[in-house]
Structure formats: structure tokens, C-alpha cells
């Protein structure tokens, strides 16, 4: 679809959660898990 008619928020690709985090340079546990010590 010509860009003059629409703006595509996904820029043509289906980005999953791990793609988004990987592109940001994040190296989270299993891609999107932040490890915390319980009761910290």
C-alpha cells in the first residue's frame, strides 16, 4: 500500500516479543523474562 495513503505501525513485518527485545539489544532470560530474587 503506498505510504502516502497509509502508515504501517509494523513496517511490513510481524514482530514478536523476542524480536522486539532482541532489536533493542536486550538479553533477557528466555527473551522476555526479568529474573528477580524473591523477597528482595
Amino acid at each position, binding site marked *: 500500500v503506498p505510504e502516502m*495513503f497509509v502508515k*504501517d505501525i509494523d513496517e511490513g513485518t510481524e514482530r514478536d516479543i523476542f524480536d*522486539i527485545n532482541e532489536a533493542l539489544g536486550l538479553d533477557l532470560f528466555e527473551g522476555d523474562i*526479568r529474573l528477580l530474587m524473591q523477597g528482595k
Partner: protein
Amino acid sequence: NSIIGDEYRWPHIIPYVLEDSLDLNAKGVILNAFERYRLKTCIDFKPWSGEANYVSVFKGSGCWSSVGNMHVGKQELSIGENCDRIATVQHEFLHALGFWHEQSRSDRDDYVTIVWDRILSGREHNFNIYNDSVSDSLNVPYDYSSVMHYSKTAFQNGTEPTIVTRISDFEDVIGQRMDFSDYDLMKLNRLYNCSSSLSFMDACDFELENICGMIQSSGDTADWQWLSQVLAGPENDHSNMGQCKESGFFMYFNTSSVKEGVTAMLESRILYPKRGFQCLEFYLYNSGSENDQVNIYTRVYTASNPEGVLTLQREIKEIPIGSWQLYYVTLQVTEKFRVAFEGVRGPGSSLGGLSIDDINLSETRCPHHIWRIQNFTQLLGSQNAEIRSPPYYSPKGYAYQIYLNLNSSTNVGIYFHLISGANDDQLQWPCPWQQATMTLLDQNPDIRQRMSNQRSITTDPTMTNDDGSYFWDRPSKVGSVAIFPNGTQFSRGRGYGTSAFITHKRLISREFIKGDDVYILLTVEDISHLNSTAIIPDPVPTSTAIVPTSAAHNACSEVECQNGGVCTVHEDRAECKCPAGEDWWYMGKRCEKRGSTQDTIVIAVASTVTVFAVMLVITLVSVYCTRRKYRKRASSKRAALSLENQHAF
């Protein structure tokens, strides 16, 4: 699969804060995700009011969460850039509720093959397995359709899949980001011992002869019949669409056998509302006269009206002939009630009648508009398939149109356009903070089992185009000329949406296309109120003790906190954590006393005045006593002097 340990569980009502850093669209999407939890699980959410532990949702870098309740007080969950999708929010909250990814469960290798040499170097740890002493699959089979499963492309170093399913049909199923799967819900509901939800009320596909406890009214002259087929139509029910022989029933009112004006009323069982607003949805089929109609009533029972008060909620006329059509009716009932479907025989000839199927009633908001696309399979296969919806108006009065792009061979795109409308002179431009939610409806008969695909976008009045003009400015100013099928000319603004709304493979799965119909549900609502600063109560000391929920329950079972206080266990003792605001708080052992900054000021002023008054009294008394003492001394000296003088003279 869930993390093992009761200490990781949250209470059924999770306190949350939506931090100011979140984009407005993300805030709206998060609230919509909460509604899915409220409909399908027993998990509910409430704004934080001082509880010891809560989820703080903020716009960090990326989309992430911790697994389970970590008892750290403020537990962060990030919904960053591009994470504002409803299924992504559901996924992250499932982590917070205690779930790992599906492919990390202990029996993973029985179902998928991880191709290690296709994984990005250094990212192999993302495919670890956790044994059944740390993670529990809750006696639920491996779930390819889980919203917690990675897709086949996860962490790939090239173009080949990193996860290969042992049953090849599931290769493109894994990684869905639409909604909870049936097994996701089974696991969540098992983990949290759910037996009901806040907003679900009833679903009926009429497959059983008891017709879901519905009753035929006695005050009318005809009845609805329980059938699986009618010669004049429908040939089959809507639930199964003829897929299953010897099954598939619906309710039918034969209008060809009765005179004009005859009615037949079918009433639901008694229902008990909790929230005070409901959405009723059902499918209708008309094979009778085009003047036959269906009226929707509520019968509300109160102490003064034990027989129930019948109120007409909606008249449905011009029901299309020859196909099942979806309807939504908004209700607002606060007392126990029934829903009643009244078929009315209209004028004109009839060779058939009216049919009802797949009723769902929930305490949720109905969509504002339904866009029905017929003969969809044909459209999907044709080239240059671009479909535009009819024009719709938002409650604020903005006119809009939806554009569905089927051109790509892999993905379907969806875009929201503002268009010129009748109210444009009275509206604010550029259009501020209207959230458009576009849902491709999974037409499963049971609302709880649907995996509808939803995306939301929000109009940001500050957003600009490359030429500096405002993106969401008045369509007649920044849009291009377009023409409706009836020849009317209008202006259409630039579209905003996604080229990756859903893949073709997912679109033809489930029940998105049913009877060759597709429904796009549309809601456009003003969310500018979400712009306001998050109300954050005064911090409450964090409970650092790891307390099993059963112990917490026992210690708290005899303690009743007042005024919204929450019972927590600290060092084996039940304590009430009292709610507090910016300038008020509750205190006392059971939060029974209220305090405020105003009270403090009054106390401070009163204390100062009292101290001043006491000091003044003491000073005056001291001065008085001192003066009196010196006066006495002076007078006695004078007396002694005069006596001496007497002796001298």
C-alpha cells in the same frame, strides 16, 4: 507451565499501577487485556491502593515481566515501544501470574525439535528446559496454540525455523498472539482454583435439549421450536454450520403457520448481574417475511415486582433473508433478570420463520459497530482485494472508515482512516486521543473459547506527516478525495494501522470465516482521561517475608480490615495494610481511624495555641506572685522604719 510454589501466587484481585511513562494507546490496550482476564478467568485487577505487592506497568525498553509474585512491593512489567498489543499484554501478565514459556516445559522434546545450529550464537539458553521439580504443566497436554509459545522463527540466525513441530500441521500454529488458548485458560484456572469469572454470564448454542434452561412464556400464543433443520431455511445451525451430522440445533419460530401479530416469547434462565452493564450477542436467521421482527426484552425482578418488570430493549427489523446475521444489544441491568426474545409475525407472506442460535451474555462492553464482509473466501483468493467498510461515527462524532488489505499473499493488513463527516465543524482538530479497536471475530459459539484477533491504534493530535501537516487533522484539509459506492464524494485522511494484522494461515484457521462471512468489530472511544497522572498512594513498607498463601489465608481468616485495608501476614502475625492517598490515610489496628493532612494542621495549630495559653497563664501568675512578694517585703521594711522613728522621738 507454571512455577512451582504457592509463594509465587498473586491474590485473585491484582493491584496495579499504570505509570505515566506508558503511551496512551498502551494504557487502553492494557485495560482491554484486563477485560479478557475478567471474562475468561477468575483473575481481576484493581488500581493499587496501598497493598504490599502490586504490578507497576511502565514503558521500559522492550516487553518483559518477572515470573510469579516476587513479593518485592512494586513489581515492574514493561510494555515498551511496539508492545502495545493485547495478546502481548496478556502474555506478559501470564508471566507475572506465574507461567513460563510453553516450549520450556519438561516434556518439550516429545513435541518439538529445537534446531540448535539455526539459533543465534549466545541465545541457546532461551531454549532451556525446566524439569518438573521447578515447573508444573498442571496435567494439561503440550499446547501448540498457547499464547505463551514462541513462534518457529524465534532467535533464528538465518531464515530456517528454530522450532520444528513433530506434527507438521502445527508449524504455523505455534506463536499465536491473538488470545488465550483453551489450554492456557485451563492451566490458569487450575493454578488459581477458578470456578467463575467476573463478567461471563451465559452462553447457549442450543445443542442440548434442555435449551440452557430457557423457558417459553405462557402469556403468548405461539412457541419457539428446538430444531436442527428447516425446509425453508436454515439448512443447518450456526454453531456447527452443518459440520457435524445428527447435531447442530437452534430455536425456530414458524411465522408461516401463524397470523399477523402473533408473538412467541423465549426467556433465558434467571441471571444475576455484578457490574450493572451487559452485552448480549446472538445470531438470527430469517426465512419468513421481511416484515417479521425480533424484540429483545429484559424481565427485571425487584422486591416490589416479584413477577418481574418487562422492558423493551431493542426492536430488530429488516432481518436479512437467507443467512445467519450477528447482532449485539447493550443492556444495563443491576437486579436479577431474564433476557427475553420475542418473535413477532409481521405483514406479508411467509414460507418459513425466524431462528436464533449462539447466544452469549457477558458483563462487557458491546462493540460500537459490526462490519460484516460476505463471500469472504472469494475476496481472499482474488487479486487486488482491497475492501473498505461503510462509514461509521464514533460517540464523539468523528466519521471513520476501515480499510482491509488482502493483497499480500501472506498477511492481511488493516487500517483506520478518519473521513469527512457531518459533525466536522463542531469537532476538535487534529483529532485528540480517540482509540480505535479493530477485532477480527473468532465466531466460536462460546465467547470464552474465542481467540479473536485485535489491534488498537490511538489518534495522537501532535503526530505529523513528512510535510509537517498534522496526521489526524480534518480530512477535508489533509485528506484525499474519495467516492462511496453510491456516488457520494468525501475526503479520506491517511490510514493508520498494520500490514501484519493476521496471516492468511491463521485467518483460515479457527472460525474467523464462518458461513463465508467475516465480522470486524469496531469501537472508537475517547481515552483522553487516561492521560491524567497515575494516582500513586503513599508508599507502604514492602513485605519482605515469603509467605505461603495458605498461611496468609489462615492468619488473616479471623482478621477483618476496615475501610479497604488489606490483611497481610508479617512474622506469622496478621496485619492490616491500610489504604492511603496523597493527603489522607487510614490507621489503627483494623484501619478503623481516618487521618488527613487537614487534621494534622488543626492539631498543630490547636497545640500551639494551648501551649501559648498555658505559658501565658504561668507567666502572669509568676509576675503576680513576684510582685506580691516584693510588695510584702517593702511594706514590712516601712513598718520597721516607722517603729524606730517612734522610739527616736
